[in-house]
């Protein structure tokens, strides 16, 4: 995400009739910056003053400075808010009352007169100021320690909403409409492939969040290929994805159904339990790969290529596999540690993990969510992950099309 330099200015008085407002807006644009009118109150009668609060954005600090210098004489004066307000946490694991609740958008807090970027941006957290008072980061409720300096109220905080639709042309041009099962999938898949290539070329990580239907529908080998081709760098999943992936490697079945024939196999319902038991007997997935017991599939490729993964447990898990993190707080933290550097996230066939990861991702990480049920994508967006593009599709056909698209590009 390009660093954006922003200042807020306000104008008041007879700024409409005197054409001062259009003059200022023209001046901002003509100098290569952009504006966003955050608040505008028009005087009801001709003697009544109007008010505008304008956000000025520029790509370079010098441009911003020149714009501010240009518009200041016209009465557009910088808003000088106070520093953010801080309260000391009196308890561990809970914020002080009135804590500022974070969004997943880029945020800055004002400390000692300077705007400081908030690190580890994540929605639904609080913002904790470091003891020296020079840095700020998002901290989840459970991460609060007694004595932490926590931002309260809304003063001295500014949030940068995502780029307007008009600026999104470099990525996900089709993101402007809601999820639909009636979209041309080829276009969507092509755009996702392009976004993945750009992410990889930029040296950013691609995160995959996968549900077991990826394996059930026969998409396991396609994901393994994405890993081999260098298109997946972090994996978040649950016990089931890993179990059925390994079950396929051991028995050729997923939940007892032959992936070759599409028919249930004899005693097939036991396969996943025997799989889990085998892995538990050797101590874990890595140990199974090291012992030569596990030789194919998604988890095998992750181990062979040092792809970090987090398998987060749930109350319906069988086993679980020794690698599964059964404490949800620890699972969240394990995922948080792997998110910095992620530039793109592909979520396939999982509602719970998709929403969980959507909650952790900063708003500037683009997300493609693929699910047979439109409700999954809708739920994700409703929970604030508005940077998501949704594709209604079964897992395997989507993955097949994606791999083909990436292969096409690789050959080109």
């Amino acid at each position, binding site marked *: 995400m390009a660093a954006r330099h922003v200042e807020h200015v306000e104008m008041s*008085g*007879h700024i409409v009739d005197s054409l*001062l407002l259009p003059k200022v807006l023209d001046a901002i644009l003509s100098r290569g910056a952009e504006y966003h009118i955050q608040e505008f109150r028009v005087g009801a009668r*001709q*003697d009544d003053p109007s008010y505008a609060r304008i956000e000025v954005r520029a790509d370079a600090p010098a441009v911003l400075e020149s714009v501010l210098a240009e518009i200041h004489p*016209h*009465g557009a*004066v910088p808003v000088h808010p106070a520093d953010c307000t801080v309260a000391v946490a009196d308890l561990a694991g809970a914020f002080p009352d009135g804590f500022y609740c974070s969004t997943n958008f880029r945020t800055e807090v004002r400390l000692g007169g300077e705007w400081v970027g908030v690190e580890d941006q994540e929605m639904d957290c609080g913002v904790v100021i470091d003891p020296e008072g020079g840095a700020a980061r998002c901290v989840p409720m459970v991460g609060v320690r007694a004595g932490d300096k926590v931002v309260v109220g809304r003063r001295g905080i500014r949030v940068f909403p995502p780029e307007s639709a008009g600026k999104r042309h470099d990525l996900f041009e089709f993101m402007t409409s809601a999820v639909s099962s009636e979209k041309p999938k080829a276009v969507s898949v092509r755009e996702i492939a392009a976004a993945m290539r750009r992410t990889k070329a930029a040296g950013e990580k691609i995160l995959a969040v996968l549900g077991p239907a990826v394996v059930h529908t026969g998409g396991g080998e396609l994901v393994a290929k994405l890993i081999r081709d260098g298109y997946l760098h972090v994996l978040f999943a649950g016990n089931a994805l890993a179990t059925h992936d390994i079950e396929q490697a051991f028995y050729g079945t997923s939940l007892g159904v032959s992936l070759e024939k599409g028919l249930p196999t004899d005693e097939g319902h036991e396969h996943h339990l025997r799989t889990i038991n085998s892995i538990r007997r050797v101590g874990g997935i890595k140990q199974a790969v090291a012992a030569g017991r596990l030789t194919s599939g998604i988890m095998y490729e992750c181990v062979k290529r040092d792809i970090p993964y987090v398998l987060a447990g749930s109350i319906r898990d069988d086993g679980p596999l020794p690698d599964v993190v059964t404490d949800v707080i620890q699972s969240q933290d394990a995922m948080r540690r792997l998110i910095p550097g992620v530039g793109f996230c592909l979520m396939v066939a999982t509602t719970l993990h998709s929403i969980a990861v959507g909650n952790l991702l900063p708003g500037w990480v683009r997300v493609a969510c693929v699910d047979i049920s439109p409700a999954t994508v809708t739920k994700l967006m409703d929970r604030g992950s508005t940077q998501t593009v949704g594709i209604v599709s079964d897992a395997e056909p989507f993955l097949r099309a994606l791999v083909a698209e990436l292969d096409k590009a690789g050959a080109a």
Partner: protein
Amino acid sequence: MQPRILMCPPDHYGIEYEINPWMNRSLGAVRELAYHQWRALRDALVGLGVTVEVLTPQPGLPDLVFTANAGLVFRGRFLSSRFRHEVRARESPVFDAWFAAHAFGVEHLPETMYHEGAGDALFCGDDLFAGYRTRSDAAAHQWVGNALGVRVLPVELVNPRYYHLDTCFCPLAPGVALYHPDAFDAYGRKVLTGHVPKLIAVGEDEAARFGCNAVVVGKTVVHNSRCPQLAADLAAARFRSIEVELDEFLKAGGSAKCLTLRLDGEEAAGWKYRPAA
């Protein structure tokens, strides 16, 4: 009601510093000639029935003659100027004392703003037209508009030779004004043409003689000499034109209007025809 105008004799007038493109200390001004021209202006105004109030000149304040910049008069209120240049800011205590002694309520703008009084703020009808950038701030005009409860229309003065609004814009009556188009940018011209139904353009030569820096008394306009086109245009608009040679003051960037401050409201000010609300 008899027109009332504040003037200050040029006893201490001279070009002692340079704060606008017209000023050139090496040229100087001839005090005797200046005095002669000032008296001619005063006499012309008195001849029009004006009561001229005289402010006592002060040594060391050469521009005190330009009373238009003392502040802005609105009914019984006097909004004292915040001069951009320190050399002129020293005039404010003198002006403030005079207005306080003459039953005006003296008010001040915030210290962070510049506003040079009637030099940059002129009523035409109900609107206060206001020049900004060179001397006054747009934000100061907005503050004044708010303080007086009037619509203020700030227009940018883009030519440093026309550094005050009264050097390039002169309301004659509600809805009628003189202006020099090149002193404004496209926005400013649009604001003026959009809010003043009858605008009389003053050409470059006569604008440079400060033809727009005129004093209006009733239907008579007193302005600098050798502005024949302006006189003809005023006649066509049914105004009488009186020329008074004021070239010694042009050397300091001033003329008839700069030398006067209307105390009972300019002819074009809409509020003077209505009782206070």
